C-alpha cells in the first residue's frame, strides 16, 4: 500500500542493521503473527510487546534464520 514515500531515519537504520547482522523469525505466541526481524527489531518487540496485538513477548518467540545458501 502506498505510504507516501517518506523514509523514516529509523527505517533506513533498520535496513542497514538488517544487512549487517543476523536475522530472526518472530512468531507471536499470542496472535500468531510472524515476521522476519533484525536484532534491533527483536529488542524493540521484547521491550514493547507484539506490535500487532500488544501481547508481551519474550526472546523465546524468536528463532534464528539460517544463513542463505
Amino acid at each position: 500500500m502506498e505510504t507516501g514515500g517518506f523514509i523514516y531515519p529509523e527505517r533506513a537504520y533498520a535496513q542497514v542493521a538488517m544487512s549487517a547482522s543476523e536475522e530472526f523469525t518472530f512468531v507471536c505466541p499470542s496472535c500468531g503473527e510472524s515476521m522476519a526481524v533484525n536484532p534491533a527489531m527483536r529488542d524493540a518487540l521484547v521491550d514493547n510487546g507484539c506490535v500487532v496485538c500488544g501481547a508481551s513477548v519474550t526472546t523465546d518467540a524468536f528463532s534464528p534464520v539460517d544463513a542463505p545458501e
Partner: protein
Amino acid sequence: MALEKQTEMTRSDTDALLGRHETGVLSLARDDDPYAIPISYGYDADDRKFYLRLVSTPESEKRAFLSSNPDARLVVYEEDEPTYRSVVVTGTLVEIPRDEMTVEHVEQYGDAKRPLFEIWGESKPDLDIQLYELRAENVSGRHIELSDRHD
C-alpha cells in the same frame, strides 16, 4: 445552562488532552455513507500521529471503509464539570504494511492501548488485525466553562 465562555485550546493543552486519553470516536466517509467507531489509540504529539490497531474481517463494513486510505476524523472529549473539552482531529488514515514495520512503530504501538473496543475472542490467529497511522492535518480543541449557577 448559559455558556460562560468557549475558548480555543492551545496546542499544548490539546496535546495534553490527547495524551491523557486513550479512546475516541473515529469517523470515516465513503461516498455519502458515514461510518463511526469507538477506537483506542496511542498518540505521538511530536509528529501529531495516532497509532491504531483495527480488527476487521474481509467482508466487514469496516474493511470497506478502510480500503482506500480514507479521510478520517477523530473526536476525543472529556467532561469534568464545569469544564468541557473536546478535540477534533482531521487527517488521513494510512495502513502500515507489515513489511514496513520499524523499530519506531514497535515503540509507538508499545505505548498504544490494545483495541479496547474490539472483540478478541480465543481465536486471535483468525482475526485480521491491521495497524494504521492517523496523520493529523488539523487538530482543534475547544474548552467550555459552564457558568457556576446555584439556583
